[in-house]
């Protein structure tokens, strides 16, 4: 199939050996690539109950059939593995030059096994593949790592993905960083890479991709660009970036505030929202092969961190380090963003864990005696920055926080799990589900834990016509959103341009044909998404997950939201159960969340796969 190479690079770090792993055209047709191919591979390759941080876990970097083409938003890759945070399915997405370079060097992805006996990095170029020693780089932050590797390899235009100290120290929410400011952030993929003593991957290729119809592809891109010029949604996004989302979540009452105790925070306005961030914007930036420059380069304009720049901060960072911690200083959030990027930490989970500890302090469940003198109070930016370094380096109390919010609550006890905001161990992103029940369902049934990328329910419940505090129709709504993003994440393109240019699955069907020469209709794409989501469900079932894992924290289920438009709302067990029943039913899963025989037949997934 054009657009793909039909092979992955398989690396065994224990043996120091590499070989090609062929992928058939039929597999691409059934799973597309990206998330879909990752589901097939993880299910087939990983034995059940594998320790995520053992050499037996597999770390898979995947592109998709559209990666490296000219399709807007196509410089994405996904890292698929078993998560050390949830002990279940993990797919973590990032932009990065490495995605393009992998295609140019002749691979659709990399499958990494084992553990090197010393720190190493993987070098892939037209001349071959080398596992090189990284003793002199181990311990460096991800910015320095990227700089050093490009210098050692004498290749400033190579694609580099690396881990920082957090990944080396097996922090359970460590990220993999690319192009300095781009992270595969969620689920602890950086810890899995660290457990393999793999500091970085550097890729440089020179071969062009064989595409079916370049002329048509150029024409489609021109049409999309013209559509973006006329779309005020796209224009607003290119001007303000994701910080505009904060104004919407504030207005809708779903802005996480004070560790998800509240849903609005007026002090955020004009300081850390679109207006506040825009004042600090120095330039706009696009990812490679995207004409939508929705990324912002900002510079701290005052105070101790004046002059610090970052690509960001994105909405999630503003929400989790801003309103969630009651920090209204943009320079402090910029510094937190830079620290997390350098040290290799997911800003979402890090902000969430710090918010949890701040509430523990507020409630008197812990004191500075237990945290080596560090007192974490809501609003204290400097203490938050200190906490980031302690977590990444697993120093003192940071060693407990580095295990994630679920483990931290287990450690502290005293019913603190009631306000440990996670699903399956993955920390909540910056949306308060009590103000939009579909978000609650989306978080609960997500196979990777509380996830904001599989679906974006505020589009329906705040900005769309769905009543936010009801359960009717929410299962179908979430399935539809999940399936659309599943297709985009398998193709593998950024899901953002699809939303604001906008581009439909019919548009992507045209793109897919121009790249591969094959037609897959919108309905066939959606059927593939159903197959992928069902296979991922089967992976988690095999790992021991059950319906009881598809749940929400006590706070979300039982504590009424005290403020904002959703004041008085809570989801409740009955509502959640009804939404889950409906969701399983529309997926073709039984009431326990197990795919039925007829569903497995429909998706051509053999029955025996249920038993592994």
């Amino acid at each position, binding site marked *: 199939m054009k657009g793909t190479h039909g092979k992955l690079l398989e690396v065994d770090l224990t043996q120091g050996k590499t070989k090609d792993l062929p992928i058939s055209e039929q597999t691409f047709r059934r799973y597309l690539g990206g998330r879909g191919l990752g589901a097939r591979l993880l299910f087939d390759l990983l034995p059940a109950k594998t320790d995520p941080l053992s050499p037996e876990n597999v770390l898979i970097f995947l592109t998709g059939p559209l990666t490296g083409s000219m399709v807007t938003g196509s410089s994405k890759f996904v890292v698929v593995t078993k998560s050390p945070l949830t002990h279940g399915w993990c797919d973590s997405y990032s932009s990065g030059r490495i995605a393009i370079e992998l295609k140019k060097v002749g691979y659709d992805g990399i499958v990494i096994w084992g553990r090197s006996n010393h720190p190493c990095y993987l070098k892939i170029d037209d001349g071959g593949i080398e596992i090189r020693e990284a003793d002199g780089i181990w311990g460096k932050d991800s910015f320095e790592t990227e700089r050093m590797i490009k210098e050692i390899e004498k290749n400033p235009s190579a694609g580099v993905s690396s881990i920082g100290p957090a990944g080396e120290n097996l922090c359970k929410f460590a990220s993999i960083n690319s192009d300095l400011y781009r992270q595969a952030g969620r689920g602890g993929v950086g810890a899995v890479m660290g457990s393999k003593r793999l500091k970085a991957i550097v890729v440089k290729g020179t071969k062009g991709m064989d595409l079916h119809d370049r002329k048509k592809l150029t024409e489609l891109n021109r049409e999309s660009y013209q559509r973006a010029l006329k*779309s*005020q*949604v796209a*224009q*607003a*996004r290119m*001007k*303000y970036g*994701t910080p*505009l*989302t904060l*104004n*919407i*979540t504030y*207005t*809708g*009452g779903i802005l996480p505030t004070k560790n998800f105790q509240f849903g609005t925070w007026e002090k955020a*306005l*004009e300081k850390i929202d*679109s*207006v506040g961030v*825009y004042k600090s914007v120095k330039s706009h930036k696009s990812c490679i092969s995207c004409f939508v420059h929705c990324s912002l380069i900002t510079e701290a304009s005052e105070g101790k961190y004046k002059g610090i720049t970052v690509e960001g901060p*994105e*909405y*999630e960072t503003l*929400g989790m380090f801003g309103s969630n911690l009651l920090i209204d200083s943009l320079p402090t959030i910029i510094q937190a963003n830079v620290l997390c990027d350098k040290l290799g930490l997911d800003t979402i989970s890090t902000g969430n864990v710090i918010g949890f500890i701040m509430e523990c302090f507020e409630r008197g469940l812990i004191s500075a005696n237990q945290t080596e003198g560090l007192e974490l109070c809501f609003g204290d930016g400097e203490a938050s920055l200190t906490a980031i370094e302690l977590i990444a380096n697993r120093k003192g109390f940071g060693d407990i926080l580095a295990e994630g919010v679920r483990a931290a609550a287990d450690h502290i006890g005293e019913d603190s799990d009631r306000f440990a905001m996670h699903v399956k161990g993955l920390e909540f*992103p*910056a*949306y308060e589900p009590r*103000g939009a029940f579909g978000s609650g369902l989306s978080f609960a049934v997500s196979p990777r834990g509380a996830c*904001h990328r599989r679906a*974006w329910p*505020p*589009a329906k419940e*705040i*900005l*769309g*016509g*769905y*009543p*936010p505090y009801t359960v009717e129709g929410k299962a179908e709504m979430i399935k539809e959103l999940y399936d659309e993003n599943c297709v985009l994440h398998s193709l593998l393109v950024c*899901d*953002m341009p699809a*939303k*604001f240019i906008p581009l439909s699955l019919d548009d992507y069907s045209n793109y897919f044909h121009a790249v591969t020469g094959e037609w897959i209709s919108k309905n066939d794409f959606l059927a593939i998404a159903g197959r992928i989501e069902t296979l991922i469900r089967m992976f988690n079932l095999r790992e021991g997950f059950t319906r009881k894992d598809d749940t929400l924290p006590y706070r979300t289920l039982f504590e009424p939201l005290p403020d*904002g*438009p*959703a004041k008085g709302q809570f989801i409740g067990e009955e509502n959640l159960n009804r939404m889950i029943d409906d969701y399983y039913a529309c997926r073709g899963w039984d009431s326990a969340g197990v795919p039925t025989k007829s569903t497995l037949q429909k998706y051509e997934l053999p029955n025996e796969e249920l038993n592994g």
Partner: protein
Amino acid sequence: MKIIINIFGTEISLKQEISLELTSPTLKDVLMALKNQYKGQLERFIKDDLSPVEGSVILVNGRNIWSLDRFETKIHQGDELTFTVLVAGG
């Protein structure tokens, strides 16, 4: 009566307090009054027949009017109207 207006588009305006000489108005009444008074700001969001322009929505107190009583939604003192483009993702 006084209401609050937010505008989230290529230009952003937060929490403008606006006085209206209306008693127990519906959203339709308010939009008709605002359309003349704030034409420059609102024409990107509402058409002449008051319906939202493609890619735009109207919120009353953080909720899309399609999940309320649409243009018959009652507007009260202090209510917050938001005219916004369809933001997506974070």
